[in-house]
């Protein structure tokens, strides 16, 4: 964050992480400590602007005295804890979680997951050709963004961002149960019949590309999406006086996507419909 109120200094607590004594501020999670120590614990449902949901279970670690594995993203570090991140047991569960996801969900646009699948030697194919998949078609029901639930790992981040953690619009929820659970608006209606205000804050937090700008979705379909050719320019939104930072993603001199820096103290990554989608006037050239 660029401006952070310092608050009361937090005490440090000490615990053992993979045999090493580490000191982290009180209130830190095990994941915070892992990252501070430079350990790469995979995460999918964890979001830097959201409270941990610990639904994906890919970040599990072993904590001495705990019967089951423990999600690093949500477990707070405690003094004297003995944590091991790279045991055979933890790696096994991570591998299976990756296999279960990759065999049921389209992870082609999920960042970093290909690397983890390789690292953990996950073989999603071993569940056979008849393994149930989500089998969802992309929902293109408005001009601004697309919901491609075939790519959804049900991390709850969009629901949390739309709900009481950020937007307070409550346009979406998880519906159904078990393997049939899906993100949906009421009555599973098109977005245009819902409470959605098109702030796009759900797209901002989606880790898999299940939610994407219509522009990105169309370009990917046409095979023209190329992040190596994109520049990112952070500027200030010109619509109102709040002063939100916008990051314009530009490819071939066209704005293709708008995000906001997650460490921006005004937005924390969130925008409104104008900042997120109201950029067409910038590129009207006549």
């Amino acid at each position, binding site marked *: 964050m660029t401006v952070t109120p310092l608050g009361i200094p937090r005490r440090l607590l000490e615990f053992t992480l993979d045999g090493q004594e580490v000191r982290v501020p009180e209130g830190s999670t095990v994941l915070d400590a892992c990252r501070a120590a430079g350990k790469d614990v995979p995460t999918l449902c964890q979001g830097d602007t959201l409270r941990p949901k610990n*639904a994906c*279970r890919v970040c599990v670690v072993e904590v001495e005295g705990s019967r*089951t594995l423990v999600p690093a993203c949500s477990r707070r570090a405690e003094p004297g804890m003995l944590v091991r991140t790279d045991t055979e047991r933890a790696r096994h569960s991570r591998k299976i979680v990756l296999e279960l996801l990759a065999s049921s969900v389209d992870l082609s646009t999920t960042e970093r997951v290909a690397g983890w699948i390789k690292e953990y030697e996950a073989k999603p194919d071993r569940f056979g050709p008849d393994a149930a998949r989500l089998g969802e078609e992309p929902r293109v029901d408005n001009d601004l963004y697309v919901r491609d639930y075939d790519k959804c790992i049900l991390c709850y981040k969009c629901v949390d961002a739309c709900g009481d953690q950020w937007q*307070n619009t409550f346009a979406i929820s998880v519906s159904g149960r078990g393997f049939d659970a899906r993100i949906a*608006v009421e009555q599973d209606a098109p977005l245009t019949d819902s409470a959605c205000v098109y702030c796009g804050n759900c797209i901002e937090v989606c880790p898999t590309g299940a939610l994407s700008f219509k522009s990105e979705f169309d370009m990917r379909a046409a095979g023209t999406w190329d992040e190596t050719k994109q520049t990112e320019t952070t500027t200030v939104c010109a619509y109102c006086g709040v002063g939100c930072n916008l990051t314009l993603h530009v490819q071939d001199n066209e704005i293709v996507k708008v995000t906001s820096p997650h460490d921006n103290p005004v937005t924390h990554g969130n925008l409104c419909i104008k900042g997120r989608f109201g950029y067409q006037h910038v590129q009207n050239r006549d």
Partner: protein
Amino acid sequence: MDLHFGDSKPTDDERAAVDALLGPPESSWEGADRSDADLRWARGGRAARDRRDLLLPGLHALSDRVGWISEGGLDYLCRRLTVPPAEAYGVATFYAMFSLRPRPATVLHVCTDLACTAAGAADLCAGVEAGLGPGVSVQRGPCLGLCERAPAALAVRAGDPVRTAVSAPATVREAVLAATAPDSAPEEPPAATAVPQAGDPGLVLLGRVGLVDPSSLDDYRAHGGYTALRRAFELGPAGVIREVTDSGLVGRGGAAFPTGRKWQATASQPDHPHYLVCNADESEPGTFKDRVLLEGDPYALVEAMTIAAYATGAHQGYVYLRGEYPRALRRLEHAIAQARARGFLGDDVLGQGHAFDIEIRRGAGAYICGEETALFNSIEGYRGEPRSKPPFPVEKGLFGKPTVENNVETLVNVLPILTMGAPAYAAIGTGKSTGPKLFCVSGSVDRPGVYELPFGATLGEVLELAGVRPGLRAVLLGGAAGGFVRPDELDIPLTFEGTREAGTTLGSGVVMAFDDSVPLPRLLLRIAEFFRDESCGQCVPCRVGTVRQEEALHRIVERTGAAAADDIALLREVGRALRDASICGLGQTAWNAVESAIDRLGAYA
């Protein structure tokens, strides 16, 4: 909260059903017609939102009246409670007993779970489907908790009031009759028929079942009722907790946590109010003890809850009762009303200055809601998904407040602890598992039912008592989340430590006997289907792992030996991750029964 609603309007029936629960709306902000006065103020904030916990009762009201939940009805309920429609949709679609699509007013739930399958549920389903017209929707479902009278069917006819009829043991003719004319279906046999030991003076927990009139508070008092509560008032809250701690009572729901410690931890929390929750969402396949207690001796639970509330400083108690128990619901409702009318519940219980009252909340067909934190979410009007622990319920439970949650059987044990005293109670059973225990015996036995035995009885003794039939092939202990044992392991002592030593589990006290009539792989497949259907879907290992487990068991249902070896290796790997990485007990135990069948019974060998 700025809510968005579509144009759908509720029907008069739907409006009436919701208003009967919530009272008439006071303004257009709550769904009444708009008047000029409504334009000059806004209803919002906490006052508008703090009735969210009435969402599930509201969904029941709609479903009970019209048989399904329409968009207009759901929208109206949302307006009344200031709940976003998307969230209410997510909640309504979570429960198996609700339909968001039109369906006939009458639904016949036919149990296809283990005991009923072994008793011919497949033929029953086929028969009723052929015998019933399109006016009845037949739903195959998980255990209805009527295993002692398998196969079982439950008819629910929406209307005002909703009518129910249980048919068990069900023949095609009787089940069809129950569905077509629920009002004229024969009365269920009394609860005592599920207690083969009924009348035995040595019974501690089941002693009153069959002996007292379950509707009569006077009869209950004439048979020792409310002596425990009087003793509790003499002892004081700390004294009650000491007695319960000294008795060695541990939770009977399956997790075996020391009850006294739980009560002490809640009682000492500075945050208030404290809540008491009774978990009566008995959904473990093969379990029906709570139903028998509630149907046969409902005042016992009311008294026990009053004691627990007094000890832990709670003034509001909830009973979360599974939705498939209509008779238990009626009897408990009646008992609570009677107790309230006679001063055993209310602002000043027995003139002792302690205020306590009980509300019943009905489940709606979700096994996961028996998980303690999922149950809190369900009562609060959210999807019944487990929360991650810590924080534990004693610190942050229902509505984020310190909460004691106990199973029905656990609570009922408090009565003998107080009447006979902790030392006498602790003398029953073994050193580590004290007191009497209820066992739900079903399957291949002559006298299925709930049996009360002191801890320490062996599996063989329980089966002997129930009249096990020849040709015993396997016994399932603890239900779908438990494990199989072999017929040559009948000397396992049925205690928490004894079953643990034997590498199995006591769970909720299910003892289900199987002969050769249903092939083992079919039973395992049914268990896997159960977990797939009942997974809430929150965490990946359980949501997808239970599907992969079922798929693998499908592939090997007719295979053995080398032909099954690859899939068994796969099952072991997935099962290990289910056990290690799932959020809650459902996923963690979803592979137990299958694993035990492979390792102990030699399934697929």
